[in-house]
């Protein structure tokens, strides 16, 4: 069969794609490069006439007005070529569309297609072959998904393989402990000896050896990712001393006195808080794929946040892409229509010296651009607005970036069915099954090393948002027509997990021969465990199948019937009739031995050092330094490449103010189709610096941050629910587990303090990278708190930009703050001192103060509101000036300049009209120590801050804008 090769390039001289790559290449040390051109490669296989090829090139593949195409070309002498294409098996939607489109054009000879890119690289003198390979590896090619060549590349198509029915028996009954562990390792099962022994015992009892399908399913069901072993484990705590360091005066948690054992972190701290708060508006917590709360009389809203850290480290685009797709399916898994996406990202420093990069790790710059592009691609294409998030940078995330993807959904109340019946069909909807994403559940439960990228290549996938969009269209209509009895997504563990979970109370029998494959050749265990994207499993009564089929036909969604639910309390999997798996539900779901772990709590923090600004510091320079710091400066470059407007409900947008560039505290949504004025508020809190210093207070701080952000835009403080995402290192190390317990205890105390229940959470442990130097690179203990709140009337939402000159500026909250971690470490004029904890503790007054502030907002007394976070009151005021393009004059009695930059919890700046000041102050009558009039908004375009009677900072708003937007 003929292989036709087409090269397509832009007509315009200036190719922005190329400009970006050149800048990246220079940053990575390839400074001799003068030009990179990017061409698209299309490989079309089939018998085509010259006329047909011409038509294909001009009517389908290239845009004749903006692009040129050719079969071959001559390149300048100094140019070198690198060509890359996707590995066989990696999703290539373009290739599929070429085949489909050719048929639509009436060109029937096209058998198959494949795509790639060609990079034409110029430098003087030309790059040597070793340099070209280095450039390919560090910038242009990811061996996990690409193959490449210097010069002309031959595409590789998936081999046409025979269907495989190969099933292996893995004898365990006679194994020694060492052999059991070796088996766990060989299968990358991440099971420990106790768990392997439990498996051994089960098969000894039933009198046979397990198949590979069975071992893989048990490993998946019992993985940290699916089973949350650490959060459910019994933990022995060596030295429970809550009287040290970071104890809050209002600690709610009573530690056990005699038996120093925790009966599960989840149960003891997280669920316990939710149960004790017992909010009547919580509809589902920790049970379903997503947490669910009431919206109004008609609707409920669901929210889930997932991590996709390991896949994003290895293949940033695909990892973040499928992370987004995966969390959207979580929301579909509660029968909700996805309406918003959130993304919180943690990366290494973007200017990291490439020489300092651990072996096998991608540069943080490449990780960020890939991750952001992956989120953009999936979110924008599927049509869900990305409205809330954060990006933080820390050395600790270099080898192990964190990618938190969240999704909010909406559904009519009680429309989500959860009752599979024996006899119902097991229906797979959406994408086909391939070898992609095998063992993702167990992979995410392991420490990464330099080999991970190579070995775990199969764990990484590229998403196909349009297929998932089709699934959304079908699911929403099928739900409203009551066509199914239950539904869940295929996430980690694929069909094994989805069918296994839904059959937990009854049983199921499926035949893998019926599963539609992307390409043949998959062994039964691979089909069962594949984590191929965009699939949902529906539980459908036989009589509803034709109606569902009709819906699927309309929306071009594939429906596959793979079996039935039973009442046998067993899950039985066949391949072409032959049984390849038969496991009892009670063993599979309840047979995992509970882990017993030991923890060592963090040492007292009373000896920690913090830095203070000296009295003689150049405070204006300090402020500007803080504003350009990557953790504070504008993230507009990222925010604007996400579509945050689609679905037409974004009332408070991520960027706000007179020039649409001020940082919103939170996002407000008014979902299309809902009645009345009620809206949804989304916000988050995260702080890596605090995590390193004091995990207990960190947890309190990020909960306060998420809540105060939500309150700042108008959320009702009595209607805020929380999601927790813990990203920690290896919990088998007692000190790591100890810090996790401290953070969980902080969650418990703060949730009760604010009466904000947890409704969903996820832990991602083992976020460590074992370098080839033998050193462990662990991330800072990181807790993301995502908040979802309700605002009664979106027309009363408040933004952070100052509105009118002459208005009063109040500081709410206790500013008697002695210390700071973040702000000062980046400034030059500082000195050290000792405090009991560098992390601010629980603001006792805050819940009450937030309620009063909310009343003021309902009364229309608040013109602008912004929370104090990194960089303290000075940065908050500067951001408000940027937002409103107006000045401010602030006065503080205390001459201590460091107070201007100090971070405390429970503090906000509020702008109030002069006429409203009396009413505003009277609302705060009982909180008069928590409210201070500190200045006014001015017409004069300067931020002026005086302390102790002396002017400390005077800076033009234009300078603040330039610093904040890094546009100097």
């Amino acid at each position, binding site marked *: 069969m003929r292989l036709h090769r087409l090269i397509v390039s*832009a007509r315009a001289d*200036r*190719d*922005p*794609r190329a*400009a*970006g790559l050149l800048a990246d290449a220079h940053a990575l040390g390839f400074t001799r490069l003068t030009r990179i051109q990017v061409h698209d490669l299309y490989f079309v296989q089939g018998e085509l006439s010259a006329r047909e090829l011409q038509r294909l090139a001009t009517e*389908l*593949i290239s*845009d*004749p*007005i*903006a*692009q040129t195409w050719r079969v071959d070309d001559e390149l300048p002498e100094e140019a070198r070529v690198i060509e890359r294409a996707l590995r066989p098996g990696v999703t290539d*939607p*373009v290739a599929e*569309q*070429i085949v489909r*489109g050719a048929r*639509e*054009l009436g060109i029937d000879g096209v058998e198959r297609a494949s795509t790639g890119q060609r990079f034409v690289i110029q430098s003087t003198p030309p790059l040597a072959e070793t340099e070209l390979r280095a450039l390919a590896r560090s910038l242009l090619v990811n061996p996990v998904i690409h193959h490449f060549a210097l010069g002309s590349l031959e595409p590789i198509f998936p081999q046409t393989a025979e269907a495989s029915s190969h099933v292996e028996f893995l004898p365990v009954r006679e194994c020694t402990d060492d052999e059991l562990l070796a088996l766990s390792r060989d299968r990358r099962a991440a099971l420990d000896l106790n768990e392997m022994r439990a498996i051994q015992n089960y098969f000894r009892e039933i009198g046979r050896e397990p198949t590979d399908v069975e071992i893989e399913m048990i490993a998946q069901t019992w993985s940290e990712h699916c089973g949350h072993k650490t959060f459910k484990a019994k933990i022995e705590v060596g030295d429970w001393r809550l009287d040290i360091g970071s104890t809050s005066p209002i600690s709610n948690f009573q530690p056990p006195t005699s038996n120093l054992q925790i009966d599960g972190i989840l149960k003891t701290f997280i669920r316990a808080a939710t149960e004790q708060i017992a909010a009547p508006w919580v509809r589902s917590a920790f049970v379903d794929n997503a947490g669910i709360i009431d919206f109004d009389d008609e609707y409920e809203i669901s929210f889930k946040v997932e991590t996709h850290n390991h896949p994003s480290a290895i293949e940033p685009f695909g990892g973040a892409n499928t992370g987004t797709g995966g969390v959207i399916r979580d929301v579909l898994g509660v029968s909700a229509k996805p309406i918003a996406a959130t993304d919180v990202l943690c990366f290494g420093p973007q200017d990291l010296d490439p020489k300092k990069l651990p072996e096998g790790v991608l540069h943080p710059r490449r990780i960020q651009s890939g991750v952001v592009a992956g989120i*953009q691609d999936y979110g*924008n*294409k*599927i*049509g869900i607005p990305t409205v809330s998030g954060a990006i933080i940078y820390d050395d600790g995330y270099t080898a192990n970036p964190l990618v938190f993807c969240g999704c909010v959904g909406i559904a009519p109340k009680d429309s989500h069915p959860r009752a599979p019946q024996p006899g119902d069909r097991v229906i797979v909807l959406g994408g086909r099954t391939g070898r992609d994403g095998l063992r993702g559940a167990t992979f995410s439960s392991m420490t990464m090393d330099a080999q991970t990228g190579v070995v775990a290549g199969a764990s990484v996938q590229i998403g*196909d*948002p*349009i297929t998932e*969009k*089709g699934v959304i269209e079908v699911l929403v209509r099928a739900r409203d027509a009551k066509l199914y009895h239950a539904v869940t997504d295929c996430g980690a563990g694929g069909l094994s997990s989805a069918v296994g979970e839904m059959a937990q109370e009854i049983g199921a029998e499926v035949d893998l021969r019926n599963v539609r494959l992307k390409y043949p050749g998959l062994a039964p265990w691979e089909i069962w465990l594949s984590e191929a994207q965009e699939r949902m499993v529906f539980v459908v009564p036989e009589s509803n199948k034709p109606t569902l089929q009709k819906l699927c*036909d*309309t*929306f*071009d969604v594939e429906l596959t019937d793979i079996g039935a639910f039973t009442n046998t309390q067993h899950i039985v999997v066949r391949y072409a009739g032959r049984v390849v798996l038969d496991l009892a539900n009670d063993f599979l779901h309840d047979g995992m031995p509970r882990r017993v772990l030991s923890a060592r709590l963090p040492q007292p923090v009373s000896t920690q050092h913090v830095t203070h600004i000296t009295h003689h510091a150049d405070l204006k320079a300090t402020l500007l330094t803080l504003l350009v710091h990557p953790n504070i400066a504008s993230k507009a470059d990222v925010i*604007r*490449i*996400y*579509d*945050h*407007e*689609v*679905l*037409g409900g*974004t*009332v408070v*947008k991520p960027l*706000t*103010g*007179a020039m*649409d560039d001020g940082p919103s505290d939170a996002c407000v949504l008014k979902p*299309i*189709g809902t009645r009345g004025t009620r809206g949804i508020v989304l916000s988050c809190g995260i702080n890596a610096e605090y995590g390193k210093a004091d995990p207990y207070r960190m947890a309190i701080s990020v909960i306060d941050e998420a809540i105060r952000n939500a309150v700042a835009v108008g959320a009702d403080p009595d209607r805020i629910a929380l999601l927790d995402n813990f990203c920690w290192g290896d919990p088998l190390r007692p000190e790591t587990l100890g810090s996790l317990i401290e953070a969980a205890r902080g969650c418990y105390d703060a949730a009760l303090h604010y009466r904000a229940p947890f409704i969903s959470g996820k832990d991602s442990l083992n976020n460590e990278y074992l370098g080839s130097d033998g050193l462990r690179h662990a991330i800072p203990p990181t807790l993301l708190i995502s908040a979802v709140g309700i605002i009664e009337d*979106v*027309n009363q*939402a*408040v*933004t952070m*930009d100052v*509105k009118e000159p002459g208005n009063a500026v109040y500081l709410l909250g206790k500013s008697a703050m002695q210390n700071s971690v973040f702000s000062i470490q980046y400034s030059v004029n500082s000195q050290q001192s000792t405090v009991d904890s560098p992390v601010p503790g629980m603001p006792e007054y805050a819940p009450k103060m937030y309620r009063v502030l909310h009343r003021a907002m309902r009364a229309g007394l608040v013109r602008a509101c912004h929370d104090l976070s990194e960089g303290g009151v000075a940065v908050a005021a500067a951001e408000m000036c940027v937002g409103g393009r107006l000045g401010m004059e602030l006065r503080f009695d205390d001459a201590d300049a460091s107070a201007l930059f100090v971070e405390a919890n429970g503090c906000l700046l509020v702008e109030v009209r002069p006429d409203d000041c009396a009413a505003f102050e009277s609302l705060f009558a009982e909180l008069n120590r928590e409210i201070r009039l500190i200045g006014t908004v001015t017409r004069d375009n300067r931020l002026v801050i005086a302390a102790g009677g002396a002017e400390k900072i005077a800076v033009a708003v234009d300078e603040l804008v330039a610093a904040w937007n890094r546009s100097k």
Partner: protein
Amino acid sequence: MQPHVLILHADGTNRDLEAARAFELAGARPEIVHLNQLRAREKSWRDYQILALPGGFSYADTLGAGRLLALDLKTYFADETREFISSGKPVIGICNGFQALVKSGILPISNLQSPISTLTFNERGHFECRWVTLVPQSHTCVWTRGLAEPIECPVAHGEGNFVLRDPALLDALRANDQSALIYARPDGSPAQNAYPFNPNGSIADIAGVCNPQGNVLGLMPHPEDHVVAYQHPRWTRGERGRMGLKLFENGVRYAAQL
């Protein structure tokens, strides 16, 4: 009569609900119909007085934004679209719908064999979501005719850079009053290719074009995302008006008197 609006849904269309809401607020009766329903003749083009091609990523924008939807229009619905358009019924293509109308050779002049223009990658090389100011210019276009005020609404696209095969064609477009909407500064003066007012580098700041007859309008920005006051990015600062809804009211009014 309340016009019945055919909102065409292809795989990957995602701003159909917003378009439907805009038409509803404008007094029409919208219905979202999948291409396959028309192909299967479950729905008939003749039952509708307005055709809307909403935004989204039809077929994931593979092989160029709107390209494969354009191919569908040409392959399956060439007669139906020709009949709809030549009968003078209003047609609007927004964002991805505009891209499909251009790439199928329906806009700016009907030339199915060899389109005279395209919408290619933004000059900045990436997708961008931001609010823009549009000035309606065309009196020929039934959607923009009589609109005195600018419109403010978001753009959200990566391939919105309007390019002509031959820049000389610009004079013809202008002569025919086909430059329906241009990107402008907030004060209403033309953007003159200054970023971010002209967000994508389109020639002559063209944000939307109509056919010479004026009943078919295509535009990159999303007027359907500014139909309620609280959608405006600066509503908390008291900024009101300049809604995209007026465009839909115009089209619906025109269809109602056909």
